[in-house]
């Protein structure tokens, strides 16, 4: 039985009827045409569908749309308005994008890290991105890209 659902995505309200089993990923991709979140496995094993829910990285394939109500959902499409986000620039310039399928999720996982801790180190980057598979880059240039935005070691 379809249930009414109200989501706040990228600052916009979306309302509609969803099946209880419909995941946030399906609603984002099929109803809102936000296809930046990718479907790589549907079981929370690749990270390509990572979006931010209240600022935290979450796999949209593992969250039912109904459960995402009353949260702020951010997808990759919200990151750049007039200008690219510094992370996006870093990914482009450092060559961290190959096939690009992991990129939206990777960028959002990285954003959650840098928003919380601007003094991050390489080990923090690795920990923050350990839920996002990349099959192309060997991770080297992704780490370079994110590290280029670190404000350095924490002092004191």
């Amino acid at each position, binding site marked *: 039985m379809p249930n009414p659902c109200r989501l706040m995505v990228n600052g916009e309200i979306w309302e509609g009827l969803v099946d209880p089993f419909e995941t946030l990923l399906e609603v984002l991709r099929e109803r809102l045409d936000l296809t930046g*979140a990718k479907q790589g496995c549907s079981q929370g094993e690749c990270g390509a569908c990572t979006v931010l829910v209240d600022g935290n990285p979450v796999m949209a394939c593992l969250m039912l749309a109904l459960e995402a109500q009353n949260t702020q959902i951010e997808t990759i499409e919200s990151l750049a308005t007039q200008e690219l986000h510094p992370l996006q620039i870093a990914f482009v310039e450092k060559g961290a994008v190959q096939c*690009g399928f992991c*990129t939206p999720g990777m960028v959002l996982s990285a954003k959650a890290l840098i928003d919380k801790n601007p003094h991050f180190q390489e080990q923090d980057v690795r*920990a923050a991105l350990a839920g*996002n598979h990349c099959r192309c880059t060997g991770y080297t240039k*992704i780490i370079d890209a994110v590290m280029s935005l670190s404000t350095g070691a924490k002092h004191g």
Partner: protein
Amino acid sequence: MVKPPDDPRTLHYLNERIIPRNQDCHSDKTAFSVVGKTYPKPDAYEKVTGKARYTADLKRPRCLVGKLLRSTHAHARLVRVDVSKALQIPGVFACVSGSDFGELIGIIPWTKDEPVLAKDVVRYIGEPIAAVAATSESVAQQALACIDVHYEPFTAHFSPEQAMVPDAVLIHSQAPGNASKSVDWEFGEVDSAFARSQVEVSGNFHFEATTHAALETHAVLAEMGADGRLCVWSSTQTPYYLHRELATVLGMPAHQIRVIRPHIGGGFGGKSEPFGHEICAAYLAKQTGRPVKFVFSREETFLTHRGRHAMDMDLRIGYLPDEGLVMDYQALLDGGAYSSYGMITTYYAGTLNAGLYRVPHYRWKSQRVFTNKPPAGPKRGHGTVQPRFAIECLVDQLCEKLGRDPIAFRRELALGPNTETVNGLRIGSSGFVTCLEKSADQSGWYQKFRKMPFGHGIGIAGSWYLSGTNYPINPESNPQSNVQIKADRSGLITLFCGAADIGQGSDAMLRHLLAEELGVDPNRCKVESQDSDICPVDLGSYSSRVTLMAGNAAISAARHLKNQILQVIAQDWHSSTKQLMIADDRVFHLDRPEQSMSFVTALNRAESVLGALGSTGSYNSPNRGGLYRGALVGPSPAYSFTVHIAELEVDLNSGQIKMKRIVAAHDCGRAIHPQLVEGQIEGSVYMGMGEALLERYETAKGLISQPNLLEYKMPTILDVGTIESIIVESPDPDGPYGAKEAGEGPLHAAIPAIANAIYDAIGLRLYQTPFEPGQILKALESGHCYKPGLPRELS
């Protein structure tokens, strides 16, 4: 002793190809303004903002959902496939089965043995049997459940050994003994060479099957236009081969078909042949008059497979101080249920073995066998990764026996530039020795090898690979790559080429070459490569062919365009074109510094004189290679070279390997776009590391045991350690500005380098991938482990 050709067809084929080489691809240019510099990859902006649309992201009005019914039996007669009940379900618009298709499909023209949908027989669990087009996923699922299938099981074979037993049930009636392909060759005098060899090593190696696991699963969308033309969007590395297969199977004129390759979420060889689901989508779209889209689940992509062949290899190598190596090699390939690229794989399983080092005596036997498992096919480093693992491990053993340093020994053995292997592969440039030196320096080899404490190890391995094949899959006399350029009065230069950018960055590479040759800013250049209606044919992204082949075609076309423009300006300036050059977006007169003109002005002037500006360029590879059956697989215009040095720690408590660092030096001839080359090296190292340590496409009763990304263990960012790439440039006369491949060759050496590092750490030789901690721990407990190079009592 090279045997004469035994197949008249082969020779005929060779003689037919008398296309002149495209001389003007080759440039003696040594100073560059764009080549060698890094510009952002043009597609990166779309990708980083989520705007890039992959096949699954595409939406068409009234689109139907396509789904496949798959066999639950590994080997059975299909007594009945009745779709009539499914067709009665509201919302089901079409349902087809094997009887709807006459033609068999297959990438290799001589081994088309795969039905679009299984007919009469199913040969592996997961083989598509029927396809449905319905209004929604759930209706489609419901329809599949209503298809009445009756199986009559046969004996199924799950290993080559089982399939080769005399009188074994045949998987394909035309393949006696279930043999898919065999190769048996001897070059030089193997037995007598062994008899006089100074030292000999041998081993039986097993390379486990692995799969591509590109993050994007297979997907296709097809739609019939109102004009009767078919449009197919597909996640494919080889849009041209798909185009051709669609025309053949659907019986449509090729010009009525348009194939679009949207952004591709990785390929690695897994999307490099036409598949049944692509044909089904087109057929269903034709039948229903509505768009039909298939998006595979992760499990379906695992079932489609075409991954690296599991290979059993017996290898024996002898060392002849004055000559090099003698090698006796046998390989048994587990092919799975269909040929796919298997005929070629069987050749690749041996053809590159007699190179890299001097191997004047080489005996090679490889045999691919059909089994009731998903078809194996080409994965990055196609067929050559497995034997390279065996060879480099044994070369390490040779060094140990001879008391030689592995780098010095490899340097001594290296087959240098402008040489030919005993089986007729001609090598142009080689930077292998430089790769050895640079990787040794950067990794601190001489301070570490045999000098670190027990448990810590460093290991080296080398490899080489081809930059496209001289003889394409399809023996046609048309060029292997074509390019068209349109120059617009706005100043925009657009290059059209069907080369498939699957994420590796071929569009960026082509843009670089275009800008370099024209002397203009890359930002005024654009590459269109997605649409077969507007892009001339390139054969696709496989065999590491694109940089060399499409690259040469691009340079050729750019040069023609430049000449057109310069001829007009030369006339205006009462000068000859030889005195003019274009650089930094301006046309200059070499002898009159005061005379120059902006490129856009020149372009407009040329258009006003000549009319629409455009040019074309093509590439065809040289006819090279031996004159024996099978000699056509392996010859390449140019070969890349790689050295990996792996440093790791064996966890003595668990037997698990902690990767510290892999330094990979790769000779790509010329790094057109260095950042992309590095990306290819780093990604290859990662993929090889996964195969060495974790990944296995393991089957139980013919079905992959764990078709998901939780249990197919791709390394995560926490597992890979540090990967360092070193670009080595040895420009090859056949490459565009000297460039050779970089996308596959940097993978191979990771696996043996890791094996050799494990040996350096604990004195254990490993013969089977992936290197399991259970095996390592058992060895550690047995007390037989030691630090090589030290007396045992000290280690």
